[in-house]
């Protein structure tokens, strides 16, 4: 026969301080677990969202990032003539030859060397159609031939002179900020965009860094890859844009996940020790009570299950506390340098329902592991001695 669940609930509330301390300890572990994975998820999500699976990104053969790539001007007309490129409403191919550089920009309130590497991307007028996730939230697109730029929404507040109407100075030239855009939370929001021809003159005469274009038929990517690899006139690697940006997040994403699991793993052991202590104390202070249960005819197995449930309940409360503690960081924007592209990326912590669920499961597992040995002791109490 099973011992009623109510018995466990009442026992838990009988020792409020001890229960609260144990639950809070587990809660902090869960909070750190959720927060760290939310950080890793947010970072990876920002980069994964950057690319679209309908787009192709061309880089120079062997280049592992946009920064180290270089595509000569002569190659652009060859690329634009590819039959795989989708055409826009005006009948022109949806292709954007781009320049890419990371600018040294001083952080607001930082010293002269407290700098961030902000991406300045020179794009063609078709880039706004190729990159479908871009939405202008303030101002207008930069005009061709002008010293004008658009800034990603995540730069606001972190750097000076990045509001519409401001003048940002870099590379010995003044640039008028004419618009601010969002990009569905992706890493484009940490970039400065200008016209490719303007940026090319001031930064890297003569060459582009990458070419992005929309596929006419998204399923034909493999064919596109083959045709560019076989083309002797150009030295290019074709990447599916979504896969390329996802791979840029791999290094740091893996480091963050590894840290999250290692740190919370060690913390979890400490919290389990706490649960073991609490449950042993509970068992020893309730020795006569347990003996009575056994005398009444409850099976040792039921007693074991009952104490495990009790431990799991305490841990579950802790898990809920932990999730509640971690929830407010959802959406908080933080930033770090993505070493794969050597640029600073701002992104939001992402607390997802799945993450909260795994936090709760993690808590219950800690509770069950911590409760097992004390519960076994309870189930094996010698009845007569215990009653005496």
């Amino acid at each position, binding site marked *: 026969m099973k011992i009623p669940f109510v018995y466990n609930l009442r026992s838990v509330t009988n020792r409020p301080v001890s229960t609260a301390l144990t639950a809070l300890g587990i809660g902090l572990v869960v909070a750190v677990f959720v927060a760290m994975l939310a950080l890793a998820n947010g970072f990876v999500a920002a980069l994964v969202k950057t690319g679209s699976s309908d787009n192709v990104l061309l880089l120079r053969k062997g280049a592992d990032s946009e920064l180290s790539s270089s595509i000569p001007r002569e190659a652009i007309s060859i690329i634009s003539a590819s039959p795989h490129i989708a055409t826009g409403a005006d009948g022109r191919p949806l292709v954007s030859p781009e320049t890419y550089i990371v600018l040294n920009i001083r952080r607001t309130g930082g010293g002269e060397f407290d*700098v961030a590497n902000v991406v300045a991307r020179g794009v063609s007028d078709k880039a706004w159609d190729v990159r479908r996730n871009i939405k202008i939230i303030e101002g207008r697109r930069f005009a061709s031939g002008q010293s004008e730029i658009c800034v990603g929404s995540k730069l606001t507040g972190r750097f000076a002179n990045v509001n519409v109407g401001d003048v940002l100075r*870099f590379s010995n030239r003044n640039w008028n900020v004419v618009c601010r855009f969002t990009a569905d939370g992706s890493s484009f929001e940490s970039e400065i965009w200008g016209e490719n021809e303007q940026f090319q003159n001031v930064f890297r005469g003569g060459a582009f860094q990458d070419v992005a274009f929309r596929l006419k038929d998204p399923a034909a990517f493999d064919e596109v890859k083959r045709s560019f690899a076989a083309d002797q006139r150009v030295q290019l690697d074709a990447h599916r844009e979504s896969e390329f940006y996802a791979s840029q997040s791999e290094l740091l994403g893996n480091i963050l996940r590894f840290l999250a699991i290692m*740190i919370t793993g060690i913390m979890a052991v400490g919290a389990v020790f706490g649960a073991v202590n609490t449950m042993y104390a509970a068992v020893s202070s309730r020795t006569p009570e347990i003996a009575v249960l056994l005398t009444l005819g409850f099976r040792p197995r039921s007693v074991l299950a009952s104490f495990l449930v009790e431990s799991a309940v305490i841990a579950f409360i802790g898990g809920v506390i932990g999730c509640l503690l971690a929830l407010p960081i959802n959406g908080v924007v933080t930033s770090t340098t993505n070493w794969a592209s050597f640029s600073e990326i701002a992104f939001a912590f992402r607390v997802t329902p799945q993450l909260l669920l795994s936090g709760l499961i993690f808590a219950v597992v800690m509770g069950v592991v911590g409760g097992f040995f004390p519960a076994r002791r309870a189930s094996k109490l010698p009845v007569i001695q215990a009653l005496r």
Partner: protein
Amino acid sequence: MKFLPLVLANLKRHKLRTILTMCSVALALFLFASLRTVVTTLESGSEVSSASRMIVQNATAFVIPLPMSYATRLKSVPHVQEVTWANWFGGKYGDGKKFFATFAVEPESYMKMYPEIQIAEDQKQAFLKEKSAAVIGEGLVRAFGWKVGDNVTLQGTIFPGDWTFTIRGIYHPTKKEYGDDSFMFHYDYLYEREPARVTPGWFIMKIDDPNVAPTVAKTIDDQFRNSNAPTKTGTEKAFAAGFASMWGNVKLLMSTIGMAVVFAILLVTANAMMMNQRERTSEVAVMKTVGFSDRRVFTLVIIEAAVIALTGAVLGLGAATLLPIVTGFGEGGFLPGFHVTAGTAVLGAAVALLLTVASGVFPAWQAAKLPVVQALRRVE
């Protein structure tokens, strides 16, 4: 002190509880010290770098190179003693899974500029003589098993194609923080194959007096302000600090987690101490009856908490100090020079003390204020 056996006897009463609590404290301090060490290691770059070396790079972006002609102009700036230059090559070996820094350097002046790079004299001469020669750090020997005389082919990510070098020297850094997994070769080797693209990525200068660094920086930056390649000049220290700041909020995150860990374990310890005291109510009453003063009872409980916290601290901080040495984690690689600093150890000890006070004070106060008569009656 004569009551120490009493404290020990109390600790032995619930051996398992005492051990588990100590282990929790040890784990917490291990994590705390390790997380803090990540932060101090990231910052250590600026501490080991020289204040009399200065770096000149492109003010717009570090990836844009500077003209070669700057070398002679920099040399003529007052207080500048020596000038050398380097280029980031960005080479990949094999599958490219193991990252290492590859530089093209002006060999003779670069070796003179960085006395931290220790290399046998005959290997150095062999490296200087041969244009396709390379010098590598000991870390790369560990990673790839390369040795002097090997031909190594790297794939260029910035300068495409296969590049073959002959390893002529293996260096050993004087300071671990300097790192030992760099790959260095002749600037001329790179220049001759890519003459149209290659100019120095950055210049490194030695100045005769660290105090004039700001003046030197200003002189240089003013000189090139309106040129095609404006410069940004600063001490190596300042650049290293700026580099550490690129981690952005990661450092803050590490510190926050460190606090959370300590607080979580504080709860575990405090709970164990309170359980101990709750079980000993009658005992404390008896002790008071036979003449123990409130103060003595209070001290005994605090000492008990201190023994748990300090033993845990010694174990945890000891493990954090020894682990990188035993596993070789600090030997170059991702965080070169990873080691627990004295500051971190002191901070860890302070945390242990705080833990003692915070976990012991409430149960101790309860024990001291225990009304004897009522407590004895409750024993029935």
